[in-house]
């Protein structure tokens, strides 16, 4: 499935962070993050108001400690639908 926007997802210990070359957004919960992503996309001016976008967020597994990566190599990906 092709997403309209793709973000790399990380967690800094306090907040979830979603970013790509155009936007950076963060939130304490994933729901908060979704709202912040929506705001950031609106502010970017690349999309019309009311547009419905599919946003793919893939967790960057390189943020896991290296010793742990040998046991498993995937955290999660999520796909959300946002109406700007």
């Amino acid at each position, binding site marked *: *499935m092709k997403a309209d926007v793709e973000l*790399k997802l990380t*967690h800094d*210990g306090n907040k979830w962070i979603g970013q790509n070359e155009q936007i950076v957004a963060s939130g304490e919960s*994933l*729901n908060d993050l*979704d709202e912040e992503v929506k705001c950031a996309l609106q502010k970017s001016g690349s999309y019309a108001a009311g547009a419905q976008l599919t946003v*793919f967020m*893939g*967790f*960057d*597994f*390189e*943020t*896991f*400690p*290296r*010793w*742990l*990566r*040998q*046991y*498993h*190599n*995937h*955290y*999660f*990906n*999520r*796909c*959300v*639908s946002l109406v700007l």
Partner: protein
Amino acid sequence: MSEVNRKWTDGMLATEDWWAVWVGLILFGAGLLSIWGIDAVGWMAKTKTWEWSKFVADPSFNMFLKAAHGKAGKAYEGMGGFGSLIVTFLVFGGITTIGAYFQKLDVKKYVLGFTCIFFITFASWMAGHEAHFKAAMTSQSKLQSEIYGNDVYCMTKVHKCTRKINKALKKMGIDVLGGQVPTQEQAAMAVGKVKKAIRLSWGLQLGGGFSYILSLLVGLFIGNFLKGFAGFLKEAAKPEWFIKTAIVYLGVKLGHMSISSTAKVGGGGELMLDLALSGAAAAFVAYLIFWPIVYALGRKAFNLRRDASAVLASGISICGVSAAIATAGAIRARPILPIAVSMLIVVFAMVELLVLPAAYTALAPDQPIVNAAAMGMTVKTDGADAAAGAILDELMVANHYTKTGELWEEDWILAGAVLTKIWIDVFIGVWAFVLALIWVYKVERKPGQSRVGASEIWFRFPKFVIGYFIAWLTYVAVVVWFPEHAKHADAGAKVVQSPMRKMMFMLTFVAIGVITDFSKLKGMGRLTLLYAIALFAIVAPIAYVVSYIFHHGLMPPVVVAG
């Protein structure tokens, strides 16, 4: 740099899971070249049983090692033990360094670390093969000590010595299988003629198990008392990579066992099928019984949050670190949670590895396959489970032989432990997917907002299992469909499924010890207590009962001496 799984092919060159498949299949393929008369694996270093006083009298490196060349070719006949060790180091060091490069490891640190781990591994392996620790007493000494003496041990597989002593007696005109009994002098003369039979004043008869335990202790010593050195080795201490490669090689062994045992004793193939099916049933039970109990314990008795209980329940009751990360990802937990739980799991897996093989051997010496499956359900992480299975195999076979004189075919107990664990591993993707659906659509419901892709199942699927089944089925296919090539295929496969596999196990033992730091348990009081209670009061006993129900009556084939 970032690592996000997007396409189904992602990670094929970048993860240790896939590299276990590549390293496994490359050398399995090289082994199969023996079909065309090419011995591409005969350089592999193979340990020999040696005896201390003989070494002191005439020191030679060739006492410890030899090249494993089979009947496929003569190319390595002149290669000494040291030469085969160096070639083995260069080949495995070379292949795994390529893998390390693609996995974006620090290649320089990896090469230095692997070099140290490799030679520490072989030093432990060779030391553990000293006859007083390893050699088994011959059945003549065991059953007729008044004639042969109670001090005749065998430097190779014990039934071979028994057979050769009987042959030597036959050449002297005494047919022991026909009922004739030799005098003490004749017996002594026959024993003297058998090169691999040796007289020892004492012997622990631990088989290869002593090498495993020794290498584990060496690794643990480094990990807990030489922490600076452990840090230096860390880049190359990859027990999961090593064990997953070993499990691919074990696939060859299982193919070999399915066929040769069927031919020999009538039923080995059936036993393998029984093991596989009962392993699947037991794995299913593990998910359905352990998880809810441990989850409820975490929630009710320890007041843990929902996400912490779920991650712990999966880590403790399913397949360890992999399950903890998969579950945490499925329920979108903060990453710190699976990281903390994983530290706990790795340390407890070591405790299980140290305690359970000896405990099962002592408590249920006549239930080898039940013990094996219970091990597969109880011990977390692939590395610790396969390692525990290997130790259990060695200890139980040696113990049974010492007590009864009956020799079980080796590796069936290991196969039981690994097969059960593999079923548990295989379903973790599905389990995590179900959890993700429950979490996203029920627990934290926000209609229309987030979707769970079925691709998550594939991303979480343990890829080394693919290599394991390819090796298993390919070997069986070659032997069944091209029986005229079976003998030649076996020559190369033997090297892959025995010395190569055992070396990867030995590397795992050292590496798992190096990365286990017991001091990491500090500050995890409540979680540690919950883990200990769940493991020893819930998972281990229930696993044993389930294992008994599904595996009761299964026994390894007996090697007939004669």
